[in-house]
């Protein structure tokens, strides 16, 4: 195959200047405060299926978003049109819209003394993610899939192997004179094999490695073998009778529980009273062994940024300490609403007001191995997949589909599927009785193996 052209940031026509000039033009046009974000990125994805190239995709894009204030009124616009006409329309559109919105005493960009950017190299950008020639990219994807398919004769089909990468450049500027920018890169390799048993029943699973530089990516072979292991253990899955037994969440599934905790401490949900953790600051809301931290400053982290979506430096915030709720996660607006200080968790898309985003959000590890945790249990369910979205953040009610392995006398036995696991998050957090020592970041959010007691499993 011929060389694949690189569409890496050719626009460098100074995005800083563009962001700053949009802010000052918005101010000249009548804004009392303004904030602009410019994003530019490139991505490629390479997918192989049954050894053959299936998809090659490669492109770059850029866009600009503007948030303008007229007094306590605000509105936002975004565009991918960088022409003079497009920029003019972006600015006049935001101001026209802002005139019709309501006065909100809490609206505004951060105070000047809150703005800033973490110093030093946060190890977020490595241009090597784009360094491999096309044939080697394909080879990465192919090796991951092949390792999965060759792991066992029951590996019969595949949704393929992939090798993807992306780089992004972001500039944020506001009318206090803040201008910050950073670049980030990532690359990933994955395999999604399908296994089939004698009955013809099929099971699929998936595994991946994600890194900011190719040098930290796990080998395609190890990713493929792990994908195969996760797939094979599902063969022969069956339903079980409804029961109440301890459950053990594997780290990926425990991570989705951490997602729920993040949603529950999100400042927007708190001030709207739409979280079961609203008004609980300082109270014990989880078992005494639970400590949850958000840290946007970890070098190389997938949730690391030098500043948040409003230009506030990121930081380390202890959210839950030994079971006590210590802090919500806040941006400027939600902090003002709650009479608190921003925690540097503003997340800014191109459009709309900033929301709340996590940095590196994790549950601190314990000291027992997953094997020890499973070994304690006479009868229980080890869960490696949750299905669906049955979580009510207002009440904490939790009911999700689950797949996993039955635990009998401390051993993992037959695979289980088509059951649900239900309870309430308030109880679940208090009933986490064991925490594994296997904390590992495979994204911006991570949790170790967890044991939870008291949940209801619905099946036959």
């Amino acid at each position: 195959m011929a060389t694949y052209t690189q569409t890496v940031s050719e626009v460098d026509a100074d995005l800083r200047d563009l962001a700053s000039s949009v802010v000052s033009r918005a101010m000249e046009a009548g804004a009392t405060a303004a904030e602009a974000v410019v994003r530019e990125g490139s991505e490629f994805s390479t997918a192989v299926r049954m050894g053959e190239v299936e998809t090659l995709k490669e492109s770059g894009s850029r866009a600009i978003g503007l948030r303008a204030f007229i007094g306590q009124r605000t509105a936002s616009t975004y565009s991918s049109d960088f022409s003079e006409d497009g920029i003019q329309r972006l600015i006049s559109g935001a101001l026209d819209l802002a005139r019709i919105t309501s006065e909100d005493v809490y609206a505004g960009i951060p105070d000047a003394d809150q703005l800033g950017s973490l110093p030093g190299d946060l190890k977020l950008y490595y241009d090597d993610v784009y360094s491999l020639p096309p044939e080697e990219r394909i080879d990465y994807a192919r090796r991951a899939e092949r390792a999965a398919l060759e792991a066992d004769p029951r590996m019969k089909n595949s949704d393929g192997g992939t090798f993807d990468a992306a780089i992004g450049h972001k500039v944020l500027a506001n009318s206090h004179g803040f201008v910050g920018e950073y670049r980030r890169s990532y690359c990933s390799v994955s395999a999604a094999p399908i296994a089939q048993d004698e009955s013809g029943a099929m099971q699929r699973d998936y595994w991946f490695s994600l890194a900011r530089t190719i040098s930290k990516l796990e080998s395609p072979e190890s990713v493929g073998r792990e994908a195969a292991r996760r797939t094979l253990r599902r063969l022969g899955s069956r339903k079980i009778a409804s029961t109440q037994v301890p459950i053990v969440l594997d780290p990926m599934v425990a991570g989705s529980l951490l997602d729920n905790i993040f949603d529950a401490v999100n400042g927007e949900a708190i001030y709207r009273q739409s979280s079961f953790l609203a008004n609980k600051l300082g109270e014990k809301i989880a078992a005494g062994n639970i400590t949850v931290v958000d840290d946007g400053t970890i070098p190389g982290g997938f949730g690391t940024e030098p500043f948040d979506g409003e230009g506030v430096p990121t930081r380390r915030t202890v959210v839950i300490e030994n079971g006590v709720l210590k802090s919500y996660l806040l941006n400027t607006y939600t902090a003002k609403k709650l009479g608190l200080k921003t925690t540097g968790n503003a997340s800014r898309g191109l459009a709309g007001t900033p929301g709340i985003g996590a940095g590196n959000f994790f549950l601190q590890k314990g000291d027992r191995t997953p094997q020890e945790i499973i070994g304690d249990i006479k009868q229980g369910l080890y869960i490696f997949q949750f299905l669906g979205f049955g979580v009510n953040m207002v009440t904490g009610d939790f009911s999700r589909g689950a797949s996993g392995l039955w635990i009998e006398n401390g051993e993992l036995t037959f695979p289980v599927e088509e059951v649900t696991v239900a309870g309430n998050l308030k109880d679940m957090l208090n009933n986490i009785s064991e925490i594994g020592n296997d904390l590992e970041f495979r994204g911006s959010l991570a949790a170790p193996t967890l044991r939870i007691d008291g949940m209801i499993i619905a099946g036959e």
Partner: protein
Amino acid sequence: MTQNQNLFFQKFGITPSDLQRYLGEALSAGGDYADLYFEYLTSTSISVDESIVKSASQGISAGCGVRVLAGERTGYAYTDDLAPEKILRAARTAALIARGPAKSPVEGFKENRAHHLYPVASPSADADIAAKLELVMRADRAARAYDPRIVQVRSGYFDELRQILVIGSDGTFASDVQPLARFSVSCIAKTPETSAKGAAGGGGRVGIDFFLTEKTPEYFAQDAARQAIIQLDAREAPAGEMEVVLGPGWPGILLHEAIGHGLEADFNRKGTSAFSGMVGRRVASDKCTVVDNGTLPSRRGSINVDDEGSPTQNTVLIENGILKGYLSDKLSARLMGVPDTGNGRRESYEHIPMPRMTNTYMLAGDDSPEDIIRSVKRGVYAVNFGGGQVDITNGKFVFSASEAYMIENGQVTAPLKNCTLIGNGPDALTKVSMVGSDLQLDEGVGTCGKDGQSVPVGVGIPTLKLDSMTVGGTAR
């Protein structure tokens, strides 16, 4: 020439000979087919929170995606700059998927006969913003007036206008102007003891008039408030297998998850779906006939042409319980030797099209909804749902009830807390024993996600009885 051919030809200066040149470049290394997807999207959103309009936003995005198909291989590149050199470069990038002598696109384009499913008089315009603002304020007032226990209300209006032009090397030439509007309301109800939430919304390929006349802000607001108030008294849902009655409309998400995804042709071409190789086999009781119909006027899931330029269709998926066929796009149709059902859809110019649903629903049966409920000794009556999810390969699916009640001795009794229903796609519909005469489609809020791409869809069912399904509650 339609309005949006004008847009791309006049605003961006694209000419028919440019299009031939781009396609020629895309096929410069061979390949079976190439297409260009031009998109210009404008959107507006305005929302009210705590009884004030905290923010409003507008956006514009435009771009072109170039795709080249060679056997089972797809090359894809896109640009958000419609300058000729940028489109040519995207075409050259996509072309590298093939490795052979250059091919030529067919000379001359033929425009497909398209439907006219959404005759909106004045789709989204800046002048409408005050009217949209009034709509969201009306919803806020109506929800708060419903009951003093409603303590928080959020309401939002979102609309977009998507203009597309699809050009294929087989002579395909299709354009469409696709309006889409959605209204949403969510409420929190609170008592000293407990809290609950309710949500409602709707819309379609409609203009603002729809919300002034057919489905008003008060209609959605009162429904959201009603659900929140009911949930204050909800008791624990039961756990285990039992009879389940699904109410008409949005509970049709059952079809979307249980069978719809499993019948998308890409999974079946690759043999990775639990439904692979099952055409002609029984997958539902003989009372079940299920279609995917992209041609319903003004519906959220409807489109005049799909994102490959093919006219949408009404496709029978299951007829009297027998699986009839799959939902296909151009690639699957060619590789499987089946007709293209006009289901090739994509989220935007940045995305590769693939088989997707439009409006998926079950045709009405003969049973009265009252008889269906009366026939149940102990079961669950689920009338509203949150999201759902399916594992395509093993067929297991879930969907989560946000409004459900116990049925005891043929009577609807207590409201239940949120619970997930779980089943197995290839046999869930074999347990349908009664099909109501009251087919309804949903209100128009559904968004389907697949491989990271979101597209608007619709669902619908009449009242249905399933003799057995697992209900994921906590009451033993």
